[in-house]
């Protein structure tokens, strides 16, 4: 078990540690060295320099910080809001439920991150707006899952018993419902982190996320595409970083799903 967990775990721990300690490390992500423009990897900068002569390794760590920050914010907001809405709709049923399902269906009708791209574009570029745009899109998956799970759990005997005893709704929700629907939500959250890392990088790649001089893996790839022939390391380094992080989260999510024995039921 420990062996099979180790590769993704090492990557993810490294990602989190680097991101969290980015401000403490002696980094110089914005320092421009004109002589080093597009320079290949060397001893002082083991990933080389970018088109402005800034060390790519340092910028990569700042990019890790951006992606972790955005992923954490977006998934937390989506998880809390989505779960609350889903549980609420399933618990009270009737028109509340019908309206919620319709709203969920409407949001799901926007394919992938298209709505986030449009929202980020209209709200204006910037990390804050990227978080808002991705959260507006992100809650839907959790709401649908929480609703479906609550519908099955709320008919169970212990919930009926709690109701018969006159337990308050909020107490039932927190003590009798949430613990039972948490496992699939955690698995969903794991995959949502992977999705958000890619989505944030996509927005930044399109110029709608993090703004210069701040670093994001997506914007680093975007800058690198202009110099692919002379400085392929500009595209390779941030790409490998995103790929490894997303791959690790996906592998971990798969393991988690098997371990928690969750069958993600995305039906309505």
């Amino acid at each position, binding site marked *: 078990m420990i062996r099979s967990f180790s590769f993704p775990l090492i990557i993810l721990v490294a990602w989190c540690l680097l991101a969290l300690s980015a401000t403490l490390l002696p980094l110089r992500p914005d320092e421009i060295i004109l002589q080093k423009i597009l320079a290949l990897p060397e001893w002082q900068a083991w990933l080389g320099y970018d088109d402005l002569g800034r060390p790519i390794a340092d910028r990569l760590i700042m990019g890790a910080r951006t992606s972790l920050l955005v992923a954490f914010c977006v998934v937390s907001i989506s998880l809390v809001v989505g779960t609350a809405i889903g549980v609420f709709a399933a618990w009270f049923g009737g028109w509340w439920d019908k309206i919620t399902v319709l709203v969920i*269906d409407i949001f799901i009708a*926007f394919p992938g991150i298209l709505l986030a791209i449009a929202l980020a574009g*209209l709200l204006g570029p910037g990390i804050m707006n990227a978080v808002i745009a991705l959260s507006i899109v992100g809650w839907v998956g959790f709401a649908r899952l929480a609703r479906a799970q609550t519908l099955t759990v709320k008919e169970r005997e212990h919930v009926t018993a709690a109701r018969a005893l006159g337990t308050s709704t909020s107490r039932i929700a927190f003590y009798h419902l949430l613990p039972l629907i948490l496992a699939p939500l955690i698995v969903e959250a794991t995959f949502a982190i*992977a999705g958000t890392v890619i989505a944030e990088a*996509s927005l930044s*790649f399109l110029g709608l996320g993090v703004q210069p001089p701040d670093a994001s893996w*997506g914007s680093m*790839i975007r800058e690198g*595409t202009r110099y692919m022939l002379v400085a392929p390391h500009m595209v390779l380094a941030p790409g490998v970083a995103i*790929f490894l992080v997303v791959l690790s989260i996906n592998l971990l999510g798969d393991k988690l799903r098997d371990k928690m024995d969750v069958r993600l039921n995305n039906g309505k």
Partner: protein
Amino acid sequence: MLNYLFARCITAIFVIFGVSTLVFMLIHIVPGDPIEVMLGETAQFADTEALRIALGLHLPLHQQWLNFMSQLFTLDLGTSLYSKREITALLAERIPPTVILACASIIIAILIALPLGIMAAVYRGSLWDTSAMTISMFGISIPNFWMGPLLIMVFSLWLGWFPVSGNEGFASLILPAITLGTALAALLSRMVRAALLEVLNEDYIRAARARGLSQFTVVLRHGLPNAALPIITVLGMQFGSLLAGAVITETIFSWPGVGQLTIEAIQKRDYPVVQACVLLISLVYVTVNLFTDLAYAFLDPRVRLEK
């Protein structure tokens, strides 16, 4: 059966209605005055007011919404602020390249996913299975905005096999289609594997094997058709991600489709065009989903023949 079809269509109509309303609201989330954002702060008062009236933004909100919806019914999407052209004409120009790209990606995805998934299912637990699923996991995890530049770097810049970008015939279609199709291929191969595994344990497969049919015939003639339904469903459901991916892929390869138009419009703050593109892509997605559901009901004799 008929009840189901009817209910499904009614839901789709509600969703289309909701999607249109949400797209209508998009322009109102622009911080500050959208007219000022579109024209810039230096614009003359006369110009801003003229645009405000042209877009109907001076009207009360419900009036604006009614206008928006009634214009949609007549397929009048307004004019582009930047090129001053009819948006419908603009879209008509951009739709064919996107359709071509999407179809090519789906074909590539199927060509990759079927052999991978079949091998993984037939030789379950073997090295084939592990490597096929590892490749698939890689495909899911590689973002298209990295895959595209990588392909350009290797096949256009180093090897010189394909053009870097643009739409100049068949050769320029290959790299964007691979970029866009990879994620779909990865997901699809997992689905093919899962669907086949479920089917391969059925009695009729055992019966086919007992009759001495070759592995090839058993899997392709008896297994795959019965596993087709969930595979088609995933294809339909993933079509949306494909369209959203096209926005990024078309930008990378300067492919002159709807996706590129969307990003151009966002960059030029041409909001009516942004609204039109988002609406178009979403409506196509809703329609494809609806048809997938209907096809599912129609293709499955168990559902179709139900009285």
